[in-house]
């Protein structure tokens, strides 16, 4: 479709401005060294053009409301509509971050209550709601680990990260100045305890662990893992990307974690927004509270304010976090209540195991175990027909589904050509059955008519963009 620039017509107008009855002209006020008297070459379109443009663009997208979106470790659950409306209340969206605190007591109370709920759900002692995404939370968490050891006068330089971890874990650790040491997974898809013992030492800050991990498997030996880390004085970091499996069942604190980050845009239902905004709230146990970034919300009697922890790592963004996202997450928690949260994890786990059971015959699972909220299958048996896992994913689009996460997690020899399916609690048995049926059909197509897969998708607006060309000859802006 055309770019908005290609719809531009000289002199066309899409705006209305209040009457400008001020004296003078802009050149009276802006010095010559800075003023550009020529307007920048932006499009000229009407409001109708803009509305049709975005409506058309929207039809080229696929969202959770369009159908099944089983991206593994992304938790693409339903985004409740009432929460969108609540977050757009006038006195939430029109609050200026620097207005005096007496003007925004409602906002602060809401943040305070959300923090209390997150503390209860995880067992942590204090939360910062500042980080804007999971990776931002990881940076905060790893900087806290760094400062904790520096403060003791014994800085540590290494960070342990399992080979199954999200790429953000090693990237965040590197940003926080750590040397990354990879820990192997074993044959049952968990952290290899022997490898962990060998690599943990007194120059290692700790371990960043996702539990259930990205293979959708609970770390059975989590208590031993915590012991190994803690006995060398290390800290255990919980990547909350997969918390959707554990609500009301296990809390990270009891499992021995010192720091957690929660993706409110995953477990807590706030929309992914085509790639954010999210919130990566970070919770810590008592011994790390002093290192949290500032400002933290606090309550003095009945008045809410902000405070700065005494050994704070500092600021990690402007103002107080993604406030409207916090509103949506809290609305979701209140809607669910304690029983509802438990129901969520139960439903997510049953849904994932149902898919695993029905599909592992055709898409061999690397592990002979029950999974938690997501399952990992592989497309490796179709290589002999010249079909790649990518082809299977693309073919799913023709059946009206968003593909699962593919090629991740990847750790040889157990997890290759992976297909990671996370159905979430939002999906009905009918939807899962339809997906399962499509996957089985595709497995037959792979054997009998592989061309169908290799050229898929056939029914989408575009098919198989040339990504090599995009990288080799980068065109990053439109030029007439």
């Amino acid at each position, binding site marked *: 479709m055309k770019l908005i620039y290609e719809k531009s017509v000289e002199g066309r107008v899409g705006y209305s401005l209040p009457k400008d009855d001020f004296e003078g002209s802009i050149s009276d006020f802006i010095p010559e060294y800075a003023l550009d008297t020529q307007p920048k070459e932006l499009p000229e379109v009407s409001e109708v053009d803009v509305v049709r443009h975005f409506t058309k663009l929207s039809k080229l997208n696929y969202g959770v409301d369009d159908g099944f979106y089983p991206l593994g470790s992304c938790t693409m659950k339903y985004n409740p509509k009432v929460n969108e409306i609540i977050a757009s209340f006038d006195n939430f969206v029109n609050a200026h*971050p620097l207005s005096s605190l007496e003007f925004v007591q409602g906002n602060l109370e809401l943040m305070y209550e959300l923090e209390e709920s997150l503390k209860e759900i995880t067992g942590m002692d204090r939360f910062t709601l500042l980080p804007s995404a999971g990776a931002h939370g990881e940076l905060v968490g790893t900087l806290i680990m760094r400062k904790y050891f520096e403060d003791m006068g014994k800085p540590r330089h290494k960070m342990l990260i399992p080979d199954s971890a999200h790429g953000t874990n090693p990237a965040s650790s590197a940003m926080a100045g750590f040397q990354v040491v990879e820990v192997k997974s074993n044959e049952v898809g968990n952290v290899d305890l022997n490898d962990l013992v060998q690599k943990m030492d007194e120059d290692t800050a700790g371990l960043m662990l996702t539990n259930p991990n990205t293979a959708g498997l609970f770390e059975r030996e989590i208590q031993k893992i915590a012991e190994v880390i803690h006995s060398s004085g290390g800290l255990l970091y919980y990547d909350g990307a997969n918390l959707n499996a554990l609500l009301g069942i296990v809390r990270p604190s009891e499992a021995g974690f010192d720091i957690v980050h929660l993706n409110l845009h995953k477990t807590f239902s706030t929309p992914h927004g085509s790639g954010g905004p999210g919130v990566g709230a970070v919770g810590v146990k008592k011994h790390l509270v002093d290192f949290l970034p500032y400002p933290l919300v606090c309550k003095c009697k009945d008045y809410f304010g902000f405070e700065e922890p005494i050994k704070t790592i500092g600021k990690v963004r*402007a103002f107080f976090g993604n406030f409207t996202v916090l509103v949506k997450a809290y609305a979701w928690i209140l809607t669910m209540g304690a029983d509802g949260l438990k129901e969520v994890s139960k439903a997510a786990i049953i849904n994932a195991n149902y898919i695993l*059971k029905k599909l592992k015959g055709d898409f061999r699972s690397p592990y002979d175990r029950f999974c938690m909220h997501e399952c990992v299958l592989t497309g490796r048996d179709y290589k002999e027909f010249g079909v790649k896992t990518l082809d299977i994913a693309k073919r799913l689009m023709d059946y009206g589904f968003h593909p699962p996460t593919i090629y991740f997690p990847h750790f040889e020899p157990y997890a290759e050509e992976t297909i990671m399916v996370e159905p979430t609690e939002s999906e009905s*048995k009918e939807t899962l059955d339809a997906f399962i049926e499509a996957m089985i059909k595709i497995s037959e197509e792979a054997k009998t008519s592989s061309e169908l897969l290799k050229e898929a998708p056939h029914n989408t607006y575009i098919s198989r963009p040339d990504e090599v060309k995009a990288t080799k000859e980068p065109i990053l802006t*439109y030029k007439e």
Partner: protein
Amino acid sequence: MRYIPNTDKQFEEMLKEIGVSSFEELIQDIPSDLRLKENLNIKGPLSELELFEYFKQIEAKNKDVSKFKPLLGCGSYKHYVPQVIKTILAREEFYTAYTPYQPELSQGTLQTMFEVQTHFSRLTGFDAVVPSIYDAASATAEATLMALRLTHKNKILISSLLHPEYIDTIKTYTEPHKPEIKIIPHKDYLLSIDALSELLDDETAVVIVQNPNFFGGIEDLRSIADLTHKHNVLLLDVVTESLSLAVLKQPKTLGVDILSGEAQSFGIDLNFGGPYNGFLATNMAFVRQLPGRIVGETVDRNGKRCFVMTLRAREQDIKREKATSNLCTSHNLNLYAINAFISLYGKNGLFKLAEYNVKASHNLRDGLIKTGKFQGENYPFFNEFVLDTTLDEETIKERLLSINVLPPLKLSNYFEGMINSYLFAVTEVFSKSDLNKIIDVLGR
């Protein structure tokens, strides 16, 4: 539960199909001594009606802020958001989609990112643009790290008139590198070029300057760039009020090397400080050092033009600890608002909107000075300015609130010695008669 479609009966059927007799069997991997014995102690469940009323009641604990027009800016600007933008943002295809990993199902997102890259390119002059990073404070910190990587040097000079929260964010992000950070003093509400000249040396990696600066002042970027480049140092320009780009010379043409911006002014509500939208822009020569998601044009297998995330070898999911940043989820939803805002205002509208901001703010400043209650040095500014006053804080507050205006920022909280100074921001939400009322109540 209305968000969980399966019935108990269906779950029973599914468990049977899985081959277990109970849910407990499925979670046998979780050691029993770790399991929660009691229910979580949290509020709820609330029905939708109860939920709605609960949040209405919390909202009411705020002052009725939507009735007040703020004279506050400082990186958070009250511009009017055309209603049509709200209807665009409400499209589920935009807000319920994921990061565009599957281009066949996300051309709407990818084309929007490409269009916003083009808008920012035309506003700044740069060809390489990262359209969405959390906010400009974190984007500026990322840009600083990029400058350290590009120069292999470790000294950072920061203008004292960079937003104080941005300065603190840079310090947090760069701390593991233990850089030498020096603050460049200001003089007459602008960066002191003499001080910069004294601080610059060949060990410096980057000079970070906000323009318009924290006082709204318009810096002489060309002179700053010339001086900076003499020492082979990079110039990072931070723009908190991106509307200014509509009427100011493109930063690239003035010698800026990297630009970090806050696009909140383009169609994003105040939101009590977030979510906003940071962005970065630079020369193509530096593109492979940029953090975050970038979209490029290509063709599909049938030769049709389309868009994909590109230059991905910089990113965490591919390069892990060797990535340029850990950025994954950004603030993409805001890009639809920004794209719609810039498209609606367009070439002439954005210029006129900026012009209105310039004229209205100068009108207020002149009016306040004429009352005799306010004084200040002349300096070039965009839509924010500093004045000193003989009025006390309580009086200002009381009088402005009486006409539904939020008072300006008291600078003593940020700058030592500026005891009676206030920073005013004026946008198009103020009409001439609104401003006259302000002058009237403060001039009494």
